[in-house]
């Protein structure tokens, strides 16, 4: 075979595809080579040198993550020279690293700590340089904490922010021993283009980039007898939480999660999926209204395509990067914020609770949701609609703190009134899911028939392709929607902000002509969110997405408009989609932000 290369690693022959690295080849043999700057999702950096190996006939050690396998190479991964070099690399990193591990949020979840432990580093070989470094910690963002004293300058975050997210809020500044990971002019993350997506947090090997946790605040609320603590859980949490509690990727733990929340002491265990269904009702109606204004009323002030607004990372990206397109964003709040506004109005009213005593906690696969909850616009209930946003990871910590044996928990259901959901809401968690859910409902509203796809599965918008397009022709429509007869609804889906950037450029240059565009800020959508269990790889995200679609297929109700609690809230409280009450509680506006 012309396209394979044969090499020998630790005395074992192996053939790999041409272009694969020595690290890939070693993986094929199940030989573990330690890495730090290497990450499957990112381009090769080769800067940490911890993956060095010895190549026969070559004087210097080579970085296995960066060097392609070449014909006849003889590699040693565990020679005396290699072990010494790796140990020195780790020791040097530790000499500049604040290794106060017991005080670190990433304690026991740190790749540098794992390496130090593996190498049994007892005495430090080099002088401790930390006291002279004047490291700073930026704690101003409501989402992300950046602690330079933990940073090993592997630049995974820089590559993530640039390659995957096209944001580049983080860059490399200065040089030599002054080199650091920095924002523009070392401004706090809160004041720069950072979208709070947390993808850097997902990929940071140490505790240099972590989410701001609200564990104490939530425990305090739970222990406060006077407070009624409501918890809502996002679609993508139920297929990922298990990973942090000893289960396989792709385990569906919806029932166990509800049970664990009750055992933690939350007073009402409810579901963001309910408000995801509500989002579809509002957003679907908004799209149809925009189409009517544009096509029938010839209203040129109506902006198309309409963009989804569920992903707070994407929303902030647009606010910084494409502020001229803010009117294209759906005015719908995200499901988290719709839920919060209703918890302190509708739910309080129905359950006879004083909204002043309600604490609304959300469990999200997301770090940007923490920022979103703190946006000043998000106080339509008269209170901060969502008080604390926790990540999936933080919930796992709480479950461990409470001594709950998660895997042995029985499956329980969510409480009623805002706990019922449809399969359409569940798939919000995967890229393309909002589009699919919206199409299931909008198509039926317009034509009176179900979407013409087997089992309601609109496979064209599924998958992990960065940008996907789907066109649906509307035929034999109901009389009320006659203006849409024969119209081909053009939709597109993008995930990860680099792909969002690509779609925005196409729209901006007039090369793309869509009606409706779904964008999720994170790779894979919320399943790959910045608040999800670490690590994240393409394989893990694929398993999580499969689990989401499995969960959807297993639901009795698969369409948002058929969710009985959604029908009830329109009957008893909101009236109809886009009503005055809906506008007051469920819709919002956006702000132009600086691009630095």
């Amino acid at each position, binding site marked *: 075979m012309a396209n394979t290369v044969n090499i020998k690693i630790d005395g074992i022959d192996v053939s790999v595809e041409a272009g694969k690295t020595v690290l890939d080849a070693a993986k094929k043999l199940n030989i573990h080579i330690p890495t730090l700057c290497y990450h499957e999702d990112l381009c090769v950096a080769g800067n940490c040198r911890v993956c060095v190996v010895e190549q026969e006939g070559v004087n210097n050690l080579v970085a296995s993550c960066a060097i392609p396998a070449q014909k006849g190479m003889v590699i040693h991964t565990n020679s005396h020279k290699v072990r010494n070099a790796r140990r020195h690399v780790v020791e040097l990193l530790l000499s500049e690293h604040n290794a106060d591990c017991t005080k670190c949020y990433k304690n026991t979840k740190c790749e540098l700590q794992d390496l130090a432990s593996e190498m049994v580093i007892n005495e430090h070989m080099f002088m401790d340089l930390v006291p002279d470094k004047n490291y700073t910690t930026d704690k101003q963002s409501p989402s992300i904490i950046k602690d330079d004293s933990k940073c090993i300058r592997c630049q995974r975050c820089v590559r993530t922010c*640039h390659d995957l997210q096209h*944001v*580049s*809020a*983080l*860059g*490399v*500044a*200065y*040089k030599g021993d002054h080199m650091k990971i*920095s*924002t*523009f*002019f070392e401004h706090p993350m809160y004041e*720069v*283009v950072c979208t709070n997506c947390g993808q850097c947090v997902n990929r940071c090997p140490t505790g240099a980039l972590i989410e701001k946790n609200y564990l104490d605040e939530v425990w305090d609320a739970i222990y406060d007898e006077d407070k009624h603590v409501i918890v809502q859980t996002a679609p993508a949490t139920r297929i990922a939480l298990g990973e942090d509690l000893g289960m396989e990727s792709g385990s569906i733990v919806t029932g166990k999660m509800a049970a664990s929340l009750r055992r933690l002491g939350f007073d009402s265990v409810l579901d963001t999926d309910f408000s995801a269904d509500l989002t579809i009702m509002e957003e679907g109606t908004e799209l149809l209204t925009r189409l009517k204004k544009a096509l029938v009323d010839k209203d040129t002030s109506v902006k198309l395509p309409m963009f989804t607004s569920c992903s707070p990372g994407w929303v902030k990206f647009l606010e910084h990067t494409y502020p001229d397109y803010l009117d294209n964003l759906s005015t719908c709040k995200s499901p988290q914020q719709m839920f919060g506004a209703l918890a302190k109005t509708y739910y309080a009213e129905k359950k006879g609770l004083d909204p002043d005593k309600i604490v609304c906690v959300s469990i999200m696969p997301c770090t940007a949701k923490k920022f979103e909850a703190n946006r000043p616009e998000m106080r339509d209930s008269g209170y901060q609609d969502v008080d604390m946003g926790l990540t999936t990871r933080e919930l796992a910590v709480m479950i461990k703190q409470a001594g709950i044996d998660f895997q042995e928990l029985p499956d329980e259901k969510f409480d009623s009134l805002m706990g019922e959901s449809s399969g359409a809401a569940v798939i919000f968690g995967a890229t393309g899911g909002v589009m699919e859910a919206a199409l299931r409902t909008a198509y039926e509203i317009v034509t009176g028939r179900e979407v013409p796809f087997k089992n309601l599965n609109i496979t064209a918008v599924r998958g992990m392709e960065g940008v996907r397009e789907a066109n649906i022709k509307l035929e034999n429509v109901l009389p009320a929607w006659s203006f849409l007869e024969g119209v081909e609804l053009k939709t597109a889906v993008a995930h990860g902000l680099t792909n969002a950037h690509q779609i925005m450029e196409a729209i901006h240059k007039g090369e793309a002509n869509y009606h409706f565009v779904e964008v999720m800020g994170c790779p894979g959508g919320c399943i790959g969110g910045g608040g999800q269990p670490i690590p994240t790889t393409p394989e893990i995200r694929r398993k999580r997405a499969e689990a989401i679609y499995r969960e959807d297929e297993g639901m009795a109700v698969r369409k948002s408009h058929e969710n009985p609690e959604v029908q009830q809230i329109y009957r008893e409280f909101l009236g109809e989609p886009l009503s005055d009450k809906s506008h007051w509680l469920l819709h919002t506006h956006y702000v132009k932000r600086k*691009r*630095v």
Partner: protein
Amino acid sequence: MPEIKELVTGLADKHGRTRESLLPILQGIITEERFISDDALTEVARELDISAALVYGTATFYSFLDTKPRGKFVIRICRTITCDMKGKKQIINTLEDLLKIRVGETTKDKNFTLLETNCLGWCHKGPAMLINDDVFTELTEDKITEIIRDYMRNI
């Protein structure tokens, strides 16, 4: 701000708007302004459609692309070993006395900034220094006093 905007646009027109134009543009700003302000960096990022953090990273990598305010004349004394052995310390003392500032500072009238720099390549004629782009070598206390007085007269 309008002047900076004009300057950056002019430099981008001259050098282009691709990534490889970044360094000549930043150098152009230094020539005009002696340092690159955050407004200037933001403007470059906007003009080239690249991230401000990346522009900042490039500027901070190079010692001669200052991001802190500098005087009209930036004096850089070579701090490397040959110049040090040839008496760079006395030169610095003399300069500090003459200008009434310490290394790293700028005079109140914003005319002079005093800095140290790595090797200038004039080891055979040390101690050496730069004032903006002009080189002065084989410095003595008398020589330096004369040079600075000259600059002061011509401000």
